[in-house]
């Protein structure tokens, strides 16, 4: 007892880390982690073990045997597959012994036995793990003199991907990706033994939204992407890291170009967002940047057409139109709409121009396709928080169609049993089959559906566990989002600590909203601005990369506005159907042509980078706004894109820490989230019950549509599935039509004849149509102005 005091003074030895495992790698001691694979532990210790089949983001399968090492766990060295075996205490690992070397040579000789060795004509040559590792670890010569295996040279396995089975080393990466990551097991090993090959079901293509990833992870040149085939050699490519802006997930990419043309996007693995994956729309949408139809410079209307003019003339003309509108109707006679297509800097400059220079409150970024911006003021979840939450509540559009890589992350959360998904929807979505509960209810009943679900003890208990993330978005373009918002608030009421991940879709929509593309006092939403234009009180519209004609869910209001004599300034990359109606067209720089930052749904600010020169004389939006401001008598003070980023940091509290310097060292970007405030209150409104004849109408988007970027990307343009109408199979019977027949749909706005299909994923008495598809528009049938929309369905 006497030395108690002195013992107490001794510093306590740090508790041994229960997860640490001591190993030796090539004679050097290394602390690995419990459960870690030998291949990973070695990589951490600086020893790269060659591999083909192993991929950090997928389960190991031990297919290729390239990663053999010698491991000694006390019984002498034994040859071990390092991607399948976990580290054990005191394991001695040797990655370069003569035995290992001989085995690596042997494995490579076998892998190459059937390989056609057509590197000179192979797209992968120069960046091919098989080529590289044959060079670094191979025997140099083959003893195989027999006839190699032969297959028909590349066969298309989808619209986007070609497969050369002779080159395939059967590593199972593409097939594992398809089933394990994408959930689209449409490619599989077929046959057996020497005939084993990757293939689809005969004549059923690998139609996955994520197919391009297989091309990126194939360790040989077996899978090639149509848009890139024979376009360049890796050593000709110049690259820069950037962020995809095709949707608001914000996947990290590298943009690769050659001779001032973007040729390829590759996914970059970051922990926060996309884990290396991209969707095909994001991966191949760069084709639009290269399109010959890009606007090459500004133009002003003359008669029915346009005359190309210099920037000075165009900007003068634009300034004149704005001044005339202000003179005639005050500042609020100018409406500024859009801004999600550009960067944070673009949106901020336009917001400053609108609010500070013109002084109009009529500024709006959404196109009646999103929930009110106040959801950005709710406690925000990151994607990682959502994908590891105990419970994920989905009150959102189909994420597979609108935010594809978020779908991958949430699917993974459910498949790996980290999270339970509770989905409330009017139509089964891509995530429904992974959901713990998928509750289908008719539009109009969403609040009641949530209320009822919460009274079920099992669901209530699940929510009560806490750690809830609500993915919140507008699921139906045919109606207001009011009831959806009420349903979301109902969930939040039951789960007070819950966080929200906004399911906003447009590229930089969150950045645009957070940086001021919002109405000022007395300002209006896009729908109201357009109505005011039709009524003549709004006299000038500034359209920032928005194609109202095809992309606004109320064609009648758009048409009335555009034909009211309102003057239109369109800032765009293409002469879209809306830009064709403009008085002044200002050519904007596209993705890949400008530097800056963007903000994704979680509020993560990441950089986008310029890789090629702009098309013609196009300019980044921030520059156009700055010059226009100067013509309206005010210097915004922006001289470079960095100066805008700095101005944002200086004046927008959520972005205070986001400076060009800080971004340089932030591998995963930086979060900019406004301080939460509970500004949204339930509306308490209720939808009129539908009458006995009508069907509730749901309109939503699919990944591929007539969006201008999609259509200007030749590889994607043909993928839109086309207009059609879905109803529950029992409703088909009720109407008395067969699957595939035609029906007439009549709404308050008009009527149309469409092909009908049975869809058991719909609630009874509900019909669904996709938005903006080839074969006929839907926006002339809807107004997005009621709590619900109804339609009559009749035989023709």
């Amino acid at each position, binding site marked *: 007892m006497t030395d108690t005091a002195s013992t107490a003074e001794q510093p306590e030895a740090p508790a041994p880390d229960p997860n640490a495992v001591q190993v030796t790698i090539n004679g050097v001691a290394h602390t690995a982690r419990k459960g870690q694979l030998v291949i990973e532990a070695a990589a951490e210790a600086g020893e790269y073990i060659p591999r083909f089949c192993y991929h950090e983001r997928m389960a190991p399968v031990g297919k290729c045997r390239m990663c053999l090492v010698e491991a000694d766990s006390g019984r002498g060295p034994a040859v071990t597959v390092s991607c399948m075996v976990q580290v054990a205490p005191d394991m001695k690992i040797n990655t370069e012994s003569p035995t290992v070397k001989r085995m690596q040579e042997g494995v490579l000789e076998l892998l190459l036995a059937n390989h056609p060795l057509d590197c000179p004509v192979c797209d992968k040559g120069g960046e091919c793990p098989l080529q590289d590792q044959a060079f670094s670890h191979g025997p140099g010569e083959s003893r195989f003199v027999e006839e190699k295996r032969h297959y028909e040279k590349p066969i298309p396995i989808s619209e986007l991907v070609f497969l050369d089975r002779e080159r395939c080393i059967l590593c199972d990466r593409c097939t594992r990706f398809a*089933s394990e990551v994408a959930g*689209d*097991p*449409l*490619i*599989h*090993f*077929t*046959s*057996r033994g020497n005939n084993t090959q990757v*293939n*689809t*079901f*005969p004549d*059923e293509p690998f139609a996955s939204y994520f197919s391009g990833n297989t091309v990126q992870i194939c360790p040989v040149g077996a899978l090639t992407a149509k848009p890139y085939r024979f376009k360049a050699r890796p050593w000709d490519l110049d690259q820069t890291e950037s962020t995809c802006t095709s949707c608001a997930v914000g996947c990290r990419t590298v943009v690769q170009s050659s001779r001032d043309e973007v040729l390829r996007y590759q996914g970059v693995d970051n922990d926060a967002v996309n884990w290396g994956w991209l969707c095909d729309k994001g991966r191949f949408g760069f084709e639009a940047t290269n399109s010959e139809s890009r606007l090459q410079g500004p133009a002003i209307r003359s008669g029915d057409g346009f005359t190309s003019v210099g920037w000075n003339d165009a900007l003068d003309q634009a300034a004149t139109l704005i001044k005339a509108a202000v003179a005639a109707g005050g500042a609020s006679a100018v409406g500024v709409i859009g801004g999600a297509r550009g960067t944070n800097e673009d949106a901020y400059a336009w917001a400053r121009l609108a609010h500070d220079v013109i002084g109009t409150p009529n500024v709006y970024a959404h196109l009646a396709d999103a929930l009110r911006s106040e959801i950005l003021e709710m406690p925000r979840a990151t994607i990682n928080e959502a994908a590891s939450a105990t419970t994920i509540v989905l009150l959102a559009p189909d994420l597979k169609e609108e935010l594809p890589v978020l779908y991958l992350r949430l699917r993974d959360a459910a498949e790996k*049993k980290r999270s339970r998904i509770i989905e409330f929807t009017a139509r089964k979505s891509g995530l429904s089959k992974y959901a713990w509960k998928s509750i289908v209810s008719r539009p109009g009943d969403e609040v009641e559906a949530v209320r009822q679900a919460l009274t079920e003890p099992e669901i209530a208990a699940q929510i009560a566990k806490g750690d809830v993330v609500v993915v919140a978005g507008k699921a139906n373009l045919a109606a207001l989002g009011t009831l959806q918002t009420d349903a979301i608030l109902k969930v939040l009421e039951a789960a007070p600590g819950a966080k929200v991940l906004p399911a906003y879709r447009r590229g930089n929509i969150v950045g645009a909203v957070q940086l001021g593309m919002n109405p000022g006092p007395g300002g209006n939403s896009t729908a109201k601005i357009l109505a005011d234009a039709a009524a003549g009180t709004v006299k000038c519209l500034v359209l920032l990369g928005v194609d109202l004609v095809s992309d606004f869910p109320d064609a009648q209001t758009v048409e009335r506005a555009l034909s009211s004599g309102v003057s239109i300034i369109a800032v765009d990359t293409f002469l879209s159907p809306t830009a064709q109606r403009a008085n002044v067209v200002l050519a904007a720089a596209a993705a890949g042509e400008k530097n800056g930052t963007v903000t994704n749904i979680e509020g993560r600010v990441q950089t986008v980078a310029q890789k090629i020169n702009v098309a013609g004389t196009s300019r980044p939006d921030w520059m156009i706004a700055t010059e226009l401001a100067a013509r309206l008598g005010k210097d915004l003070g922006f001289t470079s894109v960095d100066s805008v980023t700095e101005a944002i940091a200086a004046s927008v509290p959520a972005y205070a820490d986001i400076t060009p310097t800080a971004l340089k060292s932030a591998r995963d970007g930086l979060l900019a989230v406004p301080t939460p405030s509970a500004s949204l209150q339930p509306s308490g409104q209720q939808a009129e019950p539908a009458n006995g004849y009508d069907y509730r109408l749901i309109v939503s988007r699919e990944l591929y549509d007539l969006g201008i970027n999609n259509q200007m990307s030749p590889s994607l343009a043909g993928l839109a599935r086309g207009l059609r109408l879905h109803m529950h199979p029992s409703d088909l019977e009720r109407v008395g039509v067969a699957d595939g027949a035609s029906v007439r749909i009549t709404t308050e706005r008009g009527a149309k004849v469409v092909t009908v299909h049975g869809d058991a994923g719909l609630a009874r008495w509900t019909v669904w149509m996709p938005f903006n598809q080839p074969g006929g528009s839907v926006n002339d049938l809807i107004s997005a102005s009621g709590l619900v929309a109804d339609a009559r369905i009749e035989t023709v």
Partner: protein
Amino acid sequence: MSRLNAANLEIAREIMSRYPVVRSATIPLLHLSQEQNGYVTREAMQQIAELVESTAAEVYGTASFYEMFKFEPIGKYCVNICRSISCHLVGGDDLVEHAEHVLGIKPGGTTADGLFTLEAVECMAACTEGPTLQVNYRHRFRVTHQDFDQLIDDLRAGRLDAEIPPHGTLARERQHIPADKAAGNVSPDTPITPAWMEAAQ
């Protein structure tokens, strides 16, 4: 008619009920469809995919691993003659040649009347009894050329109908598991003891 007919669909549902994980029924269902049509049709694979909640590519990938599943129409009798070493030493290859001559087809071919498909195959695990052949996977041992001719005659005349069912039928006695003994499909996450295990306890 190449999807499962109503009677077989009912059998399919019973087969599916035997497995805790419904996907496990893939191969039994492939056999069932082969029994119905003599070979595995495209439509059957698509239907099986729907039934066991996988994709047609997965069903085809699994099925094509196995030599016994055929994806093209095949003769009523599939005649497999062994050409591996033990049989070869006692005249296996001669038997193949003889069969080609008698049937007028090459290995892989089917007679015009749709009765016979000839295949030259690897060891059938009866090496002490060579030359060996199988008709619809029913063995014949130490087969002489006369034996072969007799066999073909008998098959043509229907004298072996009782012994050798048409291609696709594995067994005439169908296994039947009463509903209360079936495992029932349960999610692997559900801590439910399958019915048969419960009964055993």
